[in-house]
């Protein structure tokens, strides 16, 4: 755990400067400026509708399926603005993987779910795919549970296994950043615990940004916490500090349940 007395040694991976996001006339995010460090878990907390999920989607431009959206400001990965011309969005989404609230495996076999990404990026020979699939499933702590039934349908797995499969699917294309939008909200405590352990393991090589409504989950898995309210950043800092001595009254009221 990072503490106020420990200097940050990891470089800034994602940098957001004065980000604003509008759906038509509605301004969902406003004036967001923050940095996210590599190989750290950053939790985004805040009440429903405060723009947490929208913020996450901005990192891999997944919101661009809607034409009514307008994004201004800068979003940089390793110092490069992902909204400037010439950025390959498909490659961006390979580098920045995403896991959603509800597990959403493809109606295919376990193997094909994980192999889907690498195939998209041109890996077609069976031996290479076998290696990639096994590696991704191992990283997602799922290999031992599914290695004997890779050809079975993914939809027959438990909810927790499906979510880890979705993480394996994201990992199979070797991302640098993993965005997780309430990844445990549909899971029981045991499956949640497995995902949280997985997050702690994955952060050794990945930058993770997680949106969660579960305060204790944010406290358990993240090094940094950012509190959003009405599309604005109220406070961001080390999770240890935010959960013991928040600077803003609004943050204190939210995390102690006095909000509203």
């Amino acid at each position: 755990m990072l503490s106020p007395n420990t200097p940050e040694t990891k470089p800034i991976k994602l940098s957001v400067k004065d980000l604003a996001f509008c759906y038509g006339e509605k301004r969902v995010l406003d004036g967001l400026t923050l940095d996210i460090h590599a190989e750290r878990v950053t939790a985004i907390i805040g009440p429903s509708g405060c723009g947490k999920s929208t913020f996450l989607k901005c990192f891999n431009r997944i919101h661009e399926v809607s034409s009514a959206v307008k994004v201004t400001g800068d979003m940089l990965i390793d110092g490069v603005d992902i909204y400037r011309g010439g950025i390959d969005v498909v490659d961006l989404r390979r580098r920045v993987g995403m896991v959603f609230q509800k597990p959403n495996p493809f109606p295919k076999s376990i193997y094909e779910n994980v192999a889907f990404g690498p195939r998209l990026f041109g890996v077609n020979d069976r031996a290479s795919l076998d290696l990639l699939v096994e590696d991704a499933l191992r990283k997602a702590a799922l290999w031992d549970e599914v290695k004997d039934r890779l050809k079975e349908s993914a939809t027959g797995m438990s909810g927790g296994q499906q979510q880890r499969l979705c993480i394996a699917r994201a990992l199979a294309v070797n991302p640098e950043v993993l965005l997780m939008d309430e990844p445990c909200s549909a899971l029981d405590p045991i499956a949640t615990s497995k995902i949280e352990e997985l997050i702690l393991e994955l952060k050794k090589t990945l930058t993770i940004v997680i949106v969660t409504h579960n305060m204790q989950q944010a406290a358990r898995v993240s090094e940094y916490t950012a509190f959003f309210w009405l599309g604005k950043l109220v406070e961001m800092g080390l999770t240890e500090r935010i959960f013991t001595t928040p600077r803003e009254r609004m943050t204190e009221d939210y995390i102690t349940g006095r909000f509203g």
Partner: protein
Amino acid sequence: MPRHLDIEIKELKDGILAMAGVAEAMIDLTIQALNEHSRPKADQVHILDRTMDEWELKLDHQCIDLLALQAPTAGDLRLIASSLKIIPELERIGDHCCNIARRAPFVHPPILSESSLERLGHETRGMVRWAVDAFIGSDGGLARTVIQADDSVDELYGKIYRELIRLMMSDPLCVERASHLILVIKNWERIADQATNIAEEVLFILEGRSAKHTYLQDNPPI
């Protein structure tokens, strides 16, 4: 509508206030036992010590339940974590009162000026009351007053200690009573330390910064 946690925290604070009330009653009885060299009053102090132990068990349990079931954060977390430290400080105050009171019958006839010994007891008692008031009233200023007052008690303790050593060296007949009195004043001095510790916890609850071992900190709250 108040949060359920607010109601439970109020119950915890009420319990700590009640326990502190018993501690203050023990201090009063201890001062009286010393002044009057009274064994019955000393016995009453011992009887109240059992009440203190019962409060300690009950309040410890309440704190653990709150931590386990409510997963408190921020100000709530600091208050409950510090309560877990304040409760044993109060219990130790009770123990020190017992240590003092049981020596009350053995310090007669007096060898010290009564006023200096009584002053030590009253100053210590004042610190305990202020520390508890600071906790209940969330009063950082009062907590700082307690911490500063500890120097005065330490000084008085040192003065009486040197006087007792001088008496023992000059009159061998004083040695037994002086030995008891050295332990008496040491226990008063420890009670003042306990009050200081409580005041430091109050500052942590209110400001989120530790007031302990300030020489190790860049920006201590005191």
